[in-house]
């Protein structure tokens, strides 16, 4: 229980940092802290393979991509006054209410859940276990995810091509000076 409280504190602090830090780099590093704490939480939930994947894919690959783009775009931490003044307080209030509602429901209504007396079936959530489930019952989803990743790669490459896409060409014809300026 003590370990869970420590992990929850780290995750919540990291999450609040993501929302409140002005510099995008600080927010991204704060999210890395959250993701690493989440990986440790996966270990406590008998999902060892997912913990490893979380560190490698999320805290590794995806966050490195984020940091690359943040440094490439050179976005500064300016946070101008919000367009709608009433939005932030309302957003905080709504989020608090939703979280409180879900928490109360989770603690009060536990009727459909089976008693978690034997966790032995998870067997540590090893790669073998997850792989068996993936390649027997969920093989169609696995294949579809492969197609999705391929589509994503093609889309990302075509989006990131310099001057690529219909819209970029149209802009180039409209105002070459401005486009060159933004190209840096």
């Amino acid at each position, binding site marked *: 229980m003590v370990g*869970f409280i420590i992990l*929850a504190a780290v*995750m*919540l602090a990291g*999450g609040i940092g*993501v*929302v409140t830090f002005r510099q995008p780099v600080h927010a991204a590093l704060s999210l890395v802290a*959250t993701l690493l704490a989440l990986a440790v*939480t*996966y270990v*406590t*939930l*008998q*999902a060892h*393979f*997912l913990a490893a*994947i*979380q560190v490698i*894919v999320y805290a590794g*690959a*995806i966050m490195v*991509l*984020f940091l690359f*783009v*943040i440094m*490439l*775009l050179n*976005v500064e931490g300016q*946070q*101008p006054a*919000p*367009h709608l003044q009433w939005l*932030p307080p309302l*957003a905080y209030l709504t*989020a608090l209410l*939703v*979280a409180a509602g*879900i*928490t109360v429901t*989770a603690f009060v209504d536990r009727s459909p*859940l089976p008693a*978690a007396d034997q*966790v032995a*079936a*998870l*067997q540590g*959530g090893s790669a073998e*276990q*997850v792989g068996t*489930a993936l390649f027997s*019952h969920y093989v169609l989803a696995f294949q579809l*995810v492969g197609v*999705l990743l391929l589509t*994503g790669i093609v889309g*990302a490459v075509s*989006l990131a091509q310099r001057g*690529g896409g219909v819209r*970029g060409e149209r*802009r180039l014809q409209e105002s070459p000076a401005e486009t060159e300026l*933004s190209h840096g």
Partner: protein
Amino acid sequence: MVPTPYYIALSALLMSIGAVGVLTRRSAIMVFLSVELMLNAANLAIVAFARQWSAKGVEAAMSGQAAVFIILAIAAAEVAVGLGILVAIFRNRVSTDVDELSEVRL
């Protein structure tokens, strides 16, 4: 063993923090980071439920973890496409302020 409702409560809190970020931040990158936070909150809930349902056997236990694995792959694809869109937007117009990107709006 920590009971499952504690994990669900933590997941709900993380999800709401991410929603606040999506609603209040104006830079598109920050909105994107908050969406990642929400995705991970959902994953935490799924893994916690997978442990709870492991009493029903290996099949039920592993379904949740396989689902989280697929969600991770989808998140990776989403980040690749989303960051590509961000770079393309930033190239056409120097700002990534989501309040100014309102051309799709009817």
